[in-house]
């Protein structure tokens, strides 16, 4: 176990170094979701939205939960990209020729993506606070938001890594990624509550795990514990099933790829 810790730490350290040397990439990764979605979208639609429909003090406070989970979605789905490049240029083979536990590479990736995502969630909630949105459930609620985000992120990162190991070229990877991410957002309760959607979109959004996570995060921000807890309970069940499925698929893809 000690050996594996050394491996995972060294590999995670590499991801951190890479990110810190891609300054622009880091900047955009961190700032893009809050700039684009929370600040622009939130303020832009402030007066175009019906408070009766969103059931929140204002659109920004409604949107905050959506932006938090969108960030988890984007980070998770992009979580396999670096492994994809490692696979393509042979760096992964170099790693696999060393006496490391096969799982260390995967674990380091989870650790890294989760850490970045966690930081981003805190920054988003911080920016929302500057616009007058503060979590009704306080520090404990924020901790729960982080846990929900991580749980969703694990499944998504697994999907991304499974794809990275399975695709023939990185063109395929990015096509699938582009195809997945926006519909996942529109077909969820991120921007509009389910009740306000056309029936067929509602039906699709119902099967999107993202909807369930957002519906748990949102009351933690705008309502309070009594309304949030039942939603959190449902979300936990959904996420455990989702993660189990994704991890199983991911493990299979990984085994097939590296043996």
């Amino acid at each position: 176990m000690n050996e594996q810790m050394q491996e995972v730490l060294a590999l995670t350290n590499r991801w951190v170094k890479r990110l810190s040397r891609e300054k622009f990439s880091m900047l955009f990764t961190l700032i893009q979701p809050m700039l684009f979605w929370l600040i622009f979208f939130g303020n832009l639609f402030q007066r175009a939205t019906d408070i009766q429909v969103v059931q929140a003090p204002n659109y920004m406070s409604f949107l905050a939960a959506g932006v938090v989970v969108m960030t988890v979605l984007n980070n998770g789905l992009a979580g396999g990209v670096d492994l994809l490049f490692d696979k393509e240029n042979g760096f992964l083979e170099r790693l696999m020729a060393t006496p490391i536990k096969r799982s260390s590479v995967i674990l380091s990736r989870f650790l890294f993506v989760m850490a970045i995502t966690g930081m981003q969630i805190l920054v988003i909630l911080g920016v929302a606070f500057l616009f007058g949105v503060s979590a009704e459930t306080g520090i404990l609620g924020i901790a729960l938001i982080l846990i929900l985000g991580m749980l969703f992120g694990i499944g998504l990162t697994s999907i991304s890594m499974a794809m990275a190991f399975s695709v023939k070229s990185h063109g395929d990877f990015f096509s699938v990624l582009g195809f997945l991410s926006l519909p996942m957002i529109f077909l969820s309760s991120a921007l509009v509550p389910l009740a306000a959607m056309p029936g067929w979109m509602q039906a699709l959004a119902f099967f999107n795990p993202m909807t369930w996570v957002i519906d748990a995060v949102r009351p933690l921000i705008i309502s309070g514990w009594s309304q949030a807890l039942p939603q959190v309970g449902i979300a936990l069940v959904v996420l455990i099933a989702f993660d189990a499925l994704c991890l199983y698929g991911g493990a299979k893809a990984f085994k097939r790829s590296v043996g």
Partner: protein
Amino acid sequence: MSTPAAIEVSNLGKVYDAVEAVKNLSLSVQHGEIFGLLGPNGAGKSTTLRILITTLSPTTGTATILGHDVVKEADTVRRLIGYVPQERAIDRFLTGREHLQLLADLYHLTKQEALTRIDTLLKLVGLEEHADRVAKGYSGGMKRKLDIACGLLPNPKILFLDEPTLGLDVQSRLNIWEHIRQLKQQGITIVMTTNYLDEADQLCDRIAIIDRGEIRAMGSPKDLKASLGGDGIWLTLSDATPEALEQLTTALQSLPFVRGIRPRENGLDIRVDGPEKALPAIMETTNTVPGCRLDGIEYHRPRLDDVFVAHTGRSLKDEPPAPAEG
């Protein structure tokens, strides 16, 4: 054999998507030798190498490294070997030293061990000055040196190199060859793939010529060349009738140093021992046969390319150069 071989491969086979990349391949590599897998791109040499370094499992057959099975004892094998992949496998955002530090952790070295070993290796390959620069700015030769340092980090008994000089300029190439020879002197067994004939010829103690997943010939470059039957003398004749050619062939066959004669386009390919005596005698004989006018005479020592042609039916040099092997 009294001491077991460093590497023992028997009846190895690998099928990818219904294509047999490696077929029934057997070979053994002795301790301390430089063994080359020579073949064109896609011949199966990289697949073989990947099986040996445990990153790919064989469909059939077995391979052992210092007595350890590459599938069942993969972890043990990984601790005994070093691997130098093709040049692209470098993280351009990390410095040279960081590459080595990462690997030191993956081989579970202590901090102190890592520090001293990394310094020694950087000095050995001559990369100290650039050790703290990000690899993005490295030249091809520098990347190769870093690769070799990475391969040597675990203090391996056996070092595997995948196309060690692919795409390098002449000077860097000679440098890398020199490094590889030094490693051999330190007693490290080396297995390398190459599609360069001169590299196989000058560097390797023994080579296996691989084509379409099969070994076509194996031995030292010298033996392989000798097996072609001596040095070659090519005669080019103008307007020789078949009868004249036959008469000439009979006449030449009676010469003591001629070992074999084969027809070639517009002339003959004569295999001889000792070209000094053979050349004048052949010219003289040719002039005595009526109807044979000598247009040209060419002497060459057998080259590895001839060996390749003899065993695969085509020239390795005809292959268009490709940057990477699939």
